[in-house]
């Protein structure tokens, strides 16, 4: 195995629970710790065990990750007397995770990975905390743009969309119709920042030297083409600190294994590119002189 996993309890009364995933072989010197937590009501393993596969893959590349539950979800409890609203508590819990990793493992920098609803806390912490040196949004904020509406008719060329329509309406698969409509609600009910606010937040992150990876999918989302993000925030030039991927055939929770594999590889290559230049052996006995330049990983796009 390329990883070791330990129970990681932290926060007030150790009420927050997670699993710390550390590389068993080479680890990257001074790398940020990677943080993942609940997507909606899913507990910390994520939809289709996404965060388990991701954090173990990142350990193979030399990164340490913490996948954890925010207060009241999964295996974490709400501290007695805590009456803060959920979004505020989620941000506080991410900060608690950072404090605990600094205290217990000496990490100074962090990369939160937000996925759908957890993007809200990832973004809030990223913008406000200088210890965050990178932010990854998987299916983050999407606003319809002129380009989105111009491309909208292209949806009608999608054979799968027609097949769904026919099987739902003509063959009367109303359960599928209901699920599709529920999915739409699950995807769309979010408290987004305004495009102007998002633009200034991204600018602030880039000015601070943070790196961003944004991954969007097609399907029934508000996202239709790769460059839509830059149109959304009215910044067509973009920045080399902001990397963007668009998978038109993937769905919102990466239901297919090949889509999950693709995203996991992409996250790994992003982290290697920005934070993975120096490695050391896991043994704490290794002296500073043991530093060496990393061999390119076959899994990373360097």
């Amino acid at each position, binding site marked *: *195995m390329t990883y070791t*996993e*330990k*129970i990681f*309890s932290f926060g007030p009364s150790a009420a927050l*629970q997670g*699993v710390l995933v550390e590389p068993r072989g080479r680890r990257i010197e001074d790398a940020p710790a990677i943080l993942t937590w609940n997507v909606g*009501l*899913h*507990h*910390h*393993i994520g*939809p*289709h*065990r996404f965060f*388990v*596969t991701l954090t173990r893959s990142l350990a193979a590349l030399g990164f340490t990750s913490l996948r954890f539950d925010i207060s009241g979800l*999964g*295996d974490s*409890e709400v501290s007695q007397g805590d009456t803060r609203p959920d979004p505020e508590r989620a941000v506080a819990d991410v900060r608690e995770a950072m404090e605990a990793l600094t205290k217990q493992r000496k990490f100074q920098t962090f990369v939160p990975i937000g996925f759908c609803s957890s993007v809200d806390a990832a973004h809030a912490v990223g913008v406000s905390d200088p210890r965050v040196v990178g932010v990854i949004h998987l299916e983050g904020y999407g606003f319809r743009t002129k380009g989105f509406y111009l491309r909208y008719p292209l949806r009608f060329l*999608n*054979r*799968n*969309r027609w*097949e*769904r329509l026919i*099987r*739902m309406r003509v063959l009367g*698969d109303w*359960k*599928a119709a209901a*699920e*599709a409509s529920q*999915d739409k609600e699950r995807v769309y009910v979010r408290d987004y920042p305004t495009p102007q606010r998002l633009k200034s937040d991204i600018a602030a992150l880039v000015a601070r030297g943070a790196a961003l990876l944004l991954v969007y999918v097609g*399907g*029934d989302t508000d996202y239709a083409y790769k460059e839509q993000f830059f149109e959304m925030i009215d910044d067509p030039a973009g920045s080399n600190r902001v990397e963007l991927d668009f998978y038109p*055939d993937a*769905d*919102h*929770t990466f*239901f*297919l*294994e090949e889509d999950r594999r693709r995203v996991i590889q992409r996250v790994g290559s992003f982290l290697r590119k920005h934070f993975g230049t120096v490695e050391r052996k896991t043994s704490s006995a290794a002296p500073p002189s043991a530093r060496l330049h990393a061999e390119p990983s076959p899994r990373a796009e360097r």
Partner: protein
Amino acid sequence: MKPLFFGEAERRLYGVYHPAAKPSRHAVLLCYPGMQEYNAAHWMFRRLATSLSREGHHVLRFDYFGTGDSDGDSDVTTPESAVADVHTAIRELRDLSRAREISLVGLRFGAACAALACSSGSAARQLVLWEPVIYGHAYVRELEAQDERRNLVLLHAERTRGRRNELLGFPFNARVRAGTEAINLTTGSPVKAKRVVVLCSDERNEHRALRDWYERSGVPTELRAVQEPDEVAGHSMRERPMLSNAVLLELAAELRGSLVG
């Protein structure tokens, strides 16, 4: 609530132990459903474990190898491996709790694994089977029908044709399929349990066949239909546990008897 890893070094299992709120010699092992139904059941299992521990049971809920936070990739979990994990978890729960007797509660695939563990070496005071997977073939067909609908909804219609190697977002290879389809609780060795309770929403022939088989083997077995409100009963088996309250109360009441004596 105490999360922990246990089991062999290269095959560690993740579990959460809920110690009893008062001195007790009885413990309950909760067996999650299969990975396709796991996420929706997780919250309900936490609620159930918390409620049982408050009532005075020591409780352990755990992830099978290849599921949740346990070691292993998602394509390795067979009924055989999961049953071996149930045996391991029973030993762990006995060590943690020092309980004299252990009852097992399983949902769907977890109920099948709990039953198979009790017919292959482990013994339970009570074996509570909630909507058990009795025939593996029927279970796989049911998951395939849900998978077809999800693929259709998510615009992966091409995945609804031909034999699948994924099922509801997880790998489902030939080995896992063969093992799962081979489940048949109405044959094999009798279960070692003082009592079996089968909880279901609708009493069907397969439930009656299971009860009759256990009764013929000399194990007192009760089949009980638990009515959920329409807003819960209208959901698929994958989603129902997340919303269920009636079964939760039924389970707590059922296990209360094990605290006596």
